[in-house]
């Protein structure tokens, strides 16, 4: 961590987005994570994506649980709403918030401990509900905040800093999410912003649950030889299957794409994700094929990355629940509270 605060001074030629804001306007508190932490890089990518998508800070909601990863919501979009919840319970809080106001952008930040150990059930049910949110899973394979024990995502054979070897199979959030039916599932690496930023931008425009599992080396407890989540190992075992470029709505796509290699996918709001297949035989719209390839690459100790599965047609939480289009705080009081007579009418249905 650092005690030195990033000064407010900025480059005078910093580009501005549609709201007239610069990247620096999307920053927040000083990070207290270890210097070189992958999470800080992911924070920078989220800042870049929020800026590029011209999100109004007051329309952003940041949610997190407990862990190093969950601290990071304090480090981006200072003007946003935020809720730092109980360990593993971020999806519940996100569900409540989203139910009350569907017109905000929900960004949940969690880690491999928060999502895959204590909060695994919550994580699964958020997917099942198809909550309209971006779910960033900052995945470093260890519990950094409690000094580096193996987490549930640690790879078989991975060695701890002090020599212990992991013999339990990992939970792969990407495979899990695809199995559970998520409509936007991606994996990336904190050291590859060229891949990560367009993924976050696209995830923000995806209608429904969007998972981005981000390999994020723990520079203090999991960046040594024998680790399978170090900067070096991640770079060496990193295989990009599908590179996604995000094209904002109302921007004309001027590049011609070769069939079979590139595939534009239109999202519900008219924006597009253009998928460039780095691996030609991979089809990110075929769920079972995607799963099969993931399992196969995992056996080879390779991290398959990119936008691994996408289905833009799913119905999200509000559509499934038949809730009104309006946020609850915008509804007139009479509609929100129809009175004692209406209540007893509802209750009579259960008698």
């Amino acid at each position, binding site marked *: 961590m*650092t005690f030195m605060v990033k000064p407010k*001074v900025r*480059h005078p*030629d910093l580009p501005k987005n549609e709201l007239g804001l610069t990247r620096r306007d999307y920053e927040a508190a000083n990070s207290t994570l270890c210097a070189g932490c992958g999470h*800080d890089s992911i924070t920078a990518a989220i800042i870049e994506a929020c800026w590029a998508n011209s999100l109004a800070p007051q329309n952003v909601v940041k949610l997190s649980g407990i862990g190093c990863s969950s601290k990071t919501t304090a480090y981006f979009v200072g003007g946003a709403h935020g809720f730092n919840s109980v360990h593993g319970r971020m999806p519940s809080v996100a569900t409540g918030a989203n139910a009350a106001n569907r017109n905000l952008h929900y960004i949940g930040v969690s880690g491999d401990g928060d999502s895959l150990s204590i909060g695994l059930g919550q994580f699964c049910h958020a997917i099942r509900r198809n909550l309209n949110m971006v779910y960033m899973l900052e995945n470093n394979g260890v519990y950094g905040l409690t000094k580096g024990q193996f987490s549930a995502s640690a790879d078989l054979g991975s060695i701890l800093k002090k020599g212990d070897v992991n013999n339990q199979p990992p939970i792969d959030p990407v495979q899990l999410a695809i199995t559970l039916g998520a409509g936007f599932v991606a994996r990336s690496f904190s*050291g590859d912003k060229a891949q990560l930023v367009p993924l976050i931008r696209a995830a923000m425009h995806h209608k429904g649950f969007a998972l981005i599992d981000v390999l994020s080396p723990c520079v203090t407890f999991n960046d040594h030889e024998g680790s399978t989540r170090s900067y*070096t190992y991640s770079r060496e075992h990193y295989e990009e299957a599908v590179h996604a470029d995000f094209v904002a709505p109302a921007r004309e796509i001027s590049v011609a794409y070769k069939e079979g290699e590139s595939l534009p996918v239109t999202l519900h709001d008219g924006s597009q994700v253009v998928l460039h297949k780095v691996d030609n035989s991979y089809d990110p719209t075929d769920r079972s094929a995607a799963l099969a390839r993931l399992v196969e690459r995992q056996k080879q100790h390779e991290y398959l990355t990119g936008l691994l599965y996408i289905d833009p047609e799913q119905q999200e939480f509000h559509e499934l629940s038949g809730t009104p289009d309006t946020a609850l705080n915008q509804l007139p009081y009479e509609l929100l509270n129809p009175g004692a007579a209406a209540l007893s009418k509802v209750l009579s249905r259960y008698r």
Partner: protein
Amino acid sequence: MNPTDTSHPDYFHKVVDCQWACPAHTDVPEYIRLIAQGRYTDAYLLNRHSNVFPGILGRVCDRPCEPACRRGRVEEKPVAICRLKRVTADLKGDLEGLLPKPLPRNGKRVACIGAGPSSLTVANDLAPLGYEVVVFERSEVPGGLMRSNIPSFRLPQSVLDEEIGLILDMGVELKTGTPVESMRKLLETGGFDAVFVGSGAPKGKELNLPGRQGTERIHIGIDWLESVAFGHQDKIGDRVLIIGVGNTAMDCCRSSLRLGAKSVKVMARKPRAFFKASEWELEDAEAENVEIVINHSPKAFVTEGGKLVGMTFDVMEYEMNGTQIKSEKIIGETTIPCDDVILAIGQENAFPWIERDLGIEFDKWSVPKVDAKTFRSTRAGVYFGGDAAFGPKNIIWAVEHGHQAALSIHQFLETGDDATRPAPGVTLSSRKMGMHEWAYKNDYAPIERKLVPHVSLKERFKKIDIEVELGFTAEQAAAEVQRCLNCDIQTVFTSKLCIECDACIDVCPVDCLTITQDGTEEELRTRTRVPAVNANQGLYVSAALPQTGRVMIKDENLCVHCGLCAERCPTAAWDMQKSTIQWPHAGDKAAVATARS
């Protein structure tokens, strides 16, 4: 492209914009830090090492450092470097025992002609080495143009006396009232091993227009200023026209006001963008209600019965093409009544006292042929410097000429070869003290430039020698020093340590770092997070990084040297290191260069 060679002393020197821009390469950030620590005497001595006259230059320097200052690019206004220099002179303690003690005489004698800044610098550098230096001065007091042409309301005599005294006290012999009337005689019978000509550019330019002759009320600017400085001239007419709009013109108009002029107009031929005067000198003159009239080209002096009554001008109109004049035309004529005219349109060097058969060659404009590096004339052992060498510049240039000429003279008299000189060098030393601790104050202070207080308009005209600028108090200086960005605390990168975690890139407040594929400089300049468009500023390119073979690049343009890259780097691939530039003077050994590993 090839990785940047940071062991070349110029690379880090250029990053310290002020030091690079200063002809004498004063270590500005270091003396500013010394001021911040209240070490005014040390700050004065550090200044004096490079620029010899901190008290004088802290008032009247042309300050090439300030337009260069990085703070001026990051915000709007540069650090008040010049006025902080004055602070070191104003607040310093006793210098007793702190100046070099001359070595025993080495038996070699050096003559300096003229007691201006360049000659005095030669004396300052050579006297401590054991040389017997004799300075010949035409007038009764030393200082040259600093004394005769800079009015005492800008530069008090006492400051001149003190700083010149420090040099003379090192055993320099000053012969005032002793003009050198024959170079031949000096060379043949003077018994000198080397001669330095620092006689300035004492000839003011004439303006030969109809009506010029037959009146006493048209003055040559620098001559007039000299007669004011020495008390020969103590009044002037009510209405004064100054022709020309350089710094001499500013001194003339402000001096005229102090001699009793009621209305002073500075007549400029071109628009304001073409004024030669420094912006701050224009401001000071205009604050005293001097009127600056543009687009008036002198045509004739108007006299009636031998008495000057006015001056006729062509009124000009210019068609501009950006900053260039595309065409000009006369759109009218006007006569402005006046009692005196002061011509401040330039000056030249003049050497009627140098015989032309001594092997000292002159070009067709009677300018001596001087080597730009050694300052040697075409005759061995004879050197030129200051305005005498290349025409009018300013004091700080004269000082640097003096340093280089002194180095030449020393090399020449030691080895017979003045072209072989110690090379400049750079040393780097880390400023990391421990966890989160750096041996410099790296907070960015978002404060605005402090204004120097001035004596009120009512008070300042009461006497000609009331110094208008009061200088910073210790408290004001303590605030202003915080604006310095410590550009000499360099970001030093060791590529083999980098794990490409992006921490430095993410934390940099001014977006000057990027990791990218290698390419040509042109390509790389477009790949920085904000395009690196300022080609005058360096682009640092690392060697290939270990994990991906990409390169780290840094646009030096707007780096605020906050050290966050080094603070955030988990492997200490970035470090903050103080660069000390060795700029050799006479007697210095060859500098040892240390490279970025």
